């Protein structure tokens, strides 16, 4: 974070950068894993039907890997939310993270606890929304 602030020199952009760096990995790894695990026989079917690479990517690989990609996104969003709150605490100015830190400085423990409760609630909601979206891309084998 300090390195980002020093190089980028803009607090909002550097927070976004830090959040990105922290949360991208599960999504990246899961996407790679999902694409690599597409069943050979589906790819063979596409080959025997002379399907172009682009069409194979969108109609075979993407739907096949979609559940794994969505799982990666669910994990990433949890991490992203954590890092958002942390970054807000550090950078200050706006957001629930700043609120928590500010209330801590005002020694208002009730507000701190209420804020923590809401952070948890929003995290859960984000996860549930993505879980609901995952249902549309899942398939039974």
């Amino acid at each position, binding site marked *: 974070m300090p390195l980002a602030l020093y190089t980028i020199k803009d607090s909002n952009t550097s927070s976004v950068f830090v959040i990105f760096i922290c949360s991208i990995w599960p999504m990246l790894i899961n996407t790679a894993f999902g694409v690599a695990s597409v*069943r050979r*026989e589906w790819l*063979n079917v596409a080959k*025997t*039907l002379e399907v172009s690479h682009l069409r194979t990517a969108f109609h075979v690989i993407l*739907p096949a890997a979609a559940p794994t990609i969505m799982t990666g996104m669910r994990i990433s969003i949890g991490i992203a939310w954590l890092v958002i709150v942390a970054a807000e605490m550090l950078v200050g100015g706006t957001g629930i993270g700043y609120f928590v830190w500010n209330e801590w400085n005002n020694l208002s423990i009730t507000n701190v606890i209420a804020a923590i409760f809401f952070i948890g609630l929003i995290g859960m909601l984000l996860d549930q929304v993505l879980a609901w979206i995952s249902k549309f*891309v899942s*398939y039974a*084998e």
Partner: protein
Amino acid sequence: MTSPAHISIEGLTRSFPAPDRESDPVTVFKDVWFKIEKGEFVCLIGHSGCGKTTLLNILAGLDHATGGAVIVDGEAVDSPSLDRAVVFQSHALMPWMSAIGNIWFAVKSRWPRWSRDQIREHCQKYIDLVRLTGSENKKQAQLSGGMKQRVGIARAMAIEPKIMLLDEPFSALDALTRGSLQDELLSVCRETGQTVFMITHDVDEALLLADKIVLMTNGPEAVISEIVVNTMPRDRTRHDMHRHAHYYPLRNHLIDFLVERATRRREEIAARADYDPSKPDIMKPGLTAPRETSADEGAETKPTVMAS
């Protein structure tokens, strides 16, 4: 001068480099020659490990041969093509698409310029052909094994290929479903005159469906042992096929091969100095006279051997 065969397999060989770099490469099969005429149904029978699936993959273009060529209508082919449709052993349906969706995908690949209505009509025709009317919108998880394989067959037929390649399509199904699917495949192929190449373990299935049965010796270094011509009439059915005079001689020949001769044949063929792999023996055991019952118990009925 005979006209060139629809599909000709010429001198196909497949070897793999040895797992440890020192020893010789492992040859799965070598010098395989046979022809498939238009409208013919050819079955390949052999023990596990003789390279049947590898051969089919090479025919489909999913694998490369180490030697030899596959000639389709006079041109050597190397890569997968819509002209050679494959039905896999494990149906290979895409689970996120419905039954009609899977066929749609194939039809769209073949004729990308067709309108939605044209494609839907075409897919429906093939759904009806394999008797799945009413189950079009079901996803894979809602279909039984037999239904899934029917969709696989419909998908292969819907692109109207030059040849259909089937890799033991019914081996994962129960006996009753297998029987009804064999009947359906037989009637569909007769109706459409489709050229088919099928791999199977089941001797009765081969006798019901095939016009020619190619027998392969055991691997490694498997070769074509012989080609058995199915001399039973083309309008045979599963119910009365076994009453035909040629049925048992044919069946006995095939079973003898699988049980006993598959290993011996390779040495026999290797020992023949004048053997030409491009002209495998063609046998018609159905035309031999039926065996006397008790008089010559130990005598072996020699099948009529005709070099092509």
